[in-house]
């Protein structure tokens, strides 16, 4: 299983944000994307997920082509927004995403336990604090199986203990043969990761 990007260029509103990005990630490898604000970290993740078109280059996912015919189908995307409805309870939110995304893995209450929100499933999502909301969104990664995790500032709003817990979750995912691509300013506490520095800022 490999995630390959070759000579990738991304643009927003007709302006180039980055170009010539390339990497190859095999089972169990993690890539941390760093760089100053505006260097295109989030754009890169959205391009990989297929949510934005790329102007040049190629992205491919090599692996189980039956289960994951495209790159997008193999990806979990955790963006800045949590993709949860504040009017529904945490439990209802997660149950919906488990049913919709398919490939069920952990149960909802087990996933909540993993992110340290055990017993809070009955609360409306809107009642949670910023960090708790983030952790509930992280639980979404656990309830359905995807080999590739695309994480955009995954630890923003998390406290130290949750940071460490999330690092452990990413380690487990890699150890199980998964791939992690994370864009971040903060150290993620992962060992043996590749780093991609998005240096040039186009203005």
């Amino acid at each position: 299983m490999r995630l390959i990007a070759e000579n990738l260029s991304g643009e927003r509103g007709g302006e180039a944000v980055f170009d010539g990005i390339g990497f190859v990630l095999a089972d169990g490898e993690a890539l941390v994307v760093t760089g100053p604000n505006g260097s295109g970290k989030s754009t890169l993740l959205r391009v990989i997920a297929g949510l934005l078109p790329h102007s040049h280059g190629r992205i491919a996912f090599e692996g189980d082509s039956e289960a994951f015919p495209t790159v997008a189908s193999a990806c979990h995307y955790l963006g800045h927004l949590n993709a949860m409805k504040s009017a529904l309870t945490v439990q209802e939110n997660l149950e919906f995403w488990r049913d919709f995304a398919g490939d069920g893995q952990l149960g909802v209450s087990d996933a909540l336990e993993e992110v340290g929100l055990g017993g809070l499933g009955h609360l409306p999502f809107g009642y949670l604090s910023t960090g708790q909301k983030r952790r509930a969104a992280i639980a979404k990664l656990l309830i359905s199986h995807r080999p590739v995790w695309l994480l955009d500032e995954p630890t923003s709003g998390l406290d130290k203990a949750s940071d460490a817990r999330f690092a452990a979750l990413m380690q487990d995912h890699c150890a199980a043969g998964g791939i992690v691509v994370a864009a971040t300013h903060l150290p993620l506490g992962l060992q043996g990761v590749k780093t991609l520095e998005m240096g040039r800022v186009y203005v």
Partner: protein
Amino acid sequence: MLALYLRDLRMGVRAGGGALTGVLFFLAVIVTIPFGVGPDLNLLARIGPAILWIGALLASLLGLDRLFQADREDGSLDLLLLNADRHMLALTVLIKCLAHWTASVLPLVIAAPLLGLFMNMEPVGIAATALTLLVGTPAIVFIGAAGAAVTVALPRGGLLISVLVLPLVIPVLIFGVTASYGAVNDPDPFTPPFLILCALTMFLAVIGPLAAAVALRSGTD
């Protein structure tokens, strides 16, 4: 897919879902008409089906701007797009339309017979209008979804949707009202316009979600 339907339905009926806005607007329109037109009962009965249809049409356009915008604002839309290989995007849109119709437009259809009394309509006319509304209003939502998808990135897209969609729903209005009149006025037929209305709904159930899916795909940023 059932999960998506249930989620959207829950969102619609819970606080802030805005399902009641349409009904209240519908009520306000129909209740003011007799005051504006005057106490001519025959005239009211004659324009009744048309007024009910226009009221329901405008009321069902009211909540359409939130159809995809709410999902876009909290990031759910990204994940719906990401899962397009598992659930065809047009099908996802269709399900969202059906949930929106059930939560926001079905109450209009249910309220229509009651409001028909304000217009001094005969029982047959009321029944025919409610039936045509039941069959015709999904078409408004389906084509409205395409408008909602085009304007999803605009913060005040509601009015623009109405302007975009109104010309396309005029045929639905015409055949809906014609069928309703056909049920009461003797020489006019009921079945042909009613069947055309059914055909329009089925046609737009395919075209609308497909167009909306294309618009959503190209509208991500």
